[in-house]
């Protein structure tokens, strides 16, 4: 990447390091859909048809999925984020709004809306028209063709992008599911935060199973 491209960094930068967002918020996450099925779980725990703990197992399954999603930085099911960006310091130019690595995925993302605070001294948040921006899947960023010249100078992060990440197909890989079952078994067997004896990790455990699927996040 030539250094000339960084002239207007970070907003015009052609690379993504550093990212130009200021803050990430997760605003919606699937709390309902089952990732590991109760059939898989009861087989793993040797409970088979003993269904008397199913609701407890379902809550463990949810915790396991969240832990692995967060570890890998992927969304096993659709997840929505709101990202905040500072004032780029110029207007009427195209700017690139980097999306965080959690959104990198094979299907790209759906941009729900781009908002901008305009009008000092009483700024109000307005939606930027869809025709004024598009998503660049190769760079995983939103290109806003032009931002309003009345963009607020007083709001800390006047630009916001709300977007939805689709389900990631990696979630269906048997090796990732096996890592999930290992973690779930650990949570099932160890229900206290403390133990009297030292616990050891097994070789080829969760981290090794998941390592190839964990994206490098700067």
């Amino acid at each position: 990447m030539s250094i000339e491209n960084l002239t207007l960094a970070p907003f015009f930068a052609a690379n993504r390091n550093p990212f130009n967002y200021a803050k990430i918020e997760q605003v919606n996450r699937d709390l309902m859909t089952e990732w590991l099925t109760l059939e898989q779980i009861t087989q793993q725990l040797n409970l088979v048809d003993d269904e008397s703990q199913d609701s407890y197992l379902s809550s463990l399954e949810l915790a396991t999925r969240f832990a692995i999603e967060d570890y890998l930085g992927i969304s096993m099911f659709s997840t929505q984020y709101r990202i905040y960006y500072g004032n780029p310091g110029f207007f009427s130019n195209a700017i690139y709004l980097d999306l965080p690595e959690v959104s990198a995925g094979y299907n790209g993302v759906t941009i729900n809306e781009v908002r901008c605070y305009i009008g000092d001294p009483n700024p109000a948040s307005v939606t930027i028209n869809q025709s004024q921006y598009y998503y660049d899947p190769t760079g995983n960023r939103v290109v806003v063709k032009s931002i309003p010249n009345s963009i607020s100078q007083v709001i800390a992060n006047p630009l916001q992008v709300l977007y939805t990440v689709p389900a990631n197909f990696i979630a269906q890989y048997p090796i990732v599911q096996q890592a999930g079952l290992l973690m779930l078994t650990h949570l099932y067997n160890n229900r206290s935060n403390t133990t009297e004896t030292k616990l050891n990790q097994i070789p080829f455990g969760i981290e090794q199973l998941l390592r190839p699927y964990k994206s490098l996040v700067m």
Partner: protein
Amino acid sequence: MGIVRYENLTVKNVVNSTDSVGEYTTTLTDWFLTRGLVHDVSNTLRISERYRAYSDLVNITLNYTPNTKEMVDNQNLYAINWRGFDWRISDVRESNDRMKITFLCYRNDPVVPV
């Protein structure tokens, strides 16, 4: 360390009643399938003049769940089917962390002539 082998088990409900001619009956119906660790404890043989009677004792360890707690609380109402035979519960031991329950189960073979 060897592989721990869990074995297929069927927990059954036991209903004792009296039939129309006044004989005591024991009816077993399937409740749920599960898997547990099974250890042989003892096989004993008693030989009388005319008969020999085999009786077996095994330890069956299951996870502590609401269902297995129910079995502990009402040991007379449940039997465990393992290797095609029904085993009645004789004793139970709950681990103090409430994670495992060990059932001591017995079974008598039909007496056979010497």
